[in-house]
């Protein structure tokens, strides 16, 4: 089961909105996954066991500076299932999660 973490920066739980969109996109793709969420200050500490990180593109510089050992997908719109699907698909394909 692929483990994905949604990350945002403002500490108000908007990463949870993103998590829900990711969950729905994955269901539509037929991919079994466990999705969680956190903020940018905690992502390094919580990266163990995570396969993919999904984040708002506004945090790209910040997150790239953390050198996370997993692919990171950056979104323009946090709850846009079409964008999430488009960006997750190649990564999931490479991991063998979809054909």
């Amino acid at each position, binding site marked *: 089961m692929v483990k994905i973490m949604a990350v945002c*920066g*403002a500490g*108000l*739980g908007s990463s949870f909105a993103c998590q*829900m969109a990711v969950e729905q996109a994955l269901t539509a793709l037929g991919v079994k996954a466990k999705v969680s969420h956190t903020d940018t200050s905690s992502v390094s500490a919580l990266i163990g066991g995570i396969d993919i990180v999904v984040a*708002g593109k506004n945090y790209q510089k910040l997150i790239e500076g953390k050198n996370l050992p997993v692919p990171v997908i950056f979104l*323009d*719109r946090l*709850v*846009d299932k079409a964008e999430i699907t488009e960006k997750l698909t190649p990564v999931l394909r490479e991991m063998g999660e979809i054909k």
Partner: protein
Amino acid sequence: MAEEGTATIEDLLKPESVQIMDGVNDWREAIRISLAPLERGGFVETRYAENVIADTLEIGPYYVLTNEIALIHARPEEGALKKQLAVTLLRRPVSFGEGMDSVCVLFALSAEDPNSHIEAIRLLANFCMDEEKVKRLIACESSEEIYRLLMDSTCE
């Protein structure tokens, strides 16, 4: 994730916090106007809106959820006093930058922490992903209609 027991949209939104505006001059005005009901009600300090603007200048608009919808918010320590939600519908969309020029629904949120309103976030996210509901919101002709739509959609 246990969402029961946390604040819902009904808990966080008063009818008088829903407003419809013709348009705004720019994204800064959009941010200030969207937060005005929260400021009037004492749910955020004036610096909250200014912090959203400052953070936007630093990292870009970090709150765009879909083509039409933004969730205007800052970190709790940036001037949030109590959790609350406001909704602004713009008749003429505002641009938050390239590729984000169709925003016409502004949810404005303040909260003291990320968790005590997580049910509201869940309900909001579901609403935003329902294209039919979003179309209906944009077509609403009064703030009362918007309030009813949100209450009916999110009281499950």
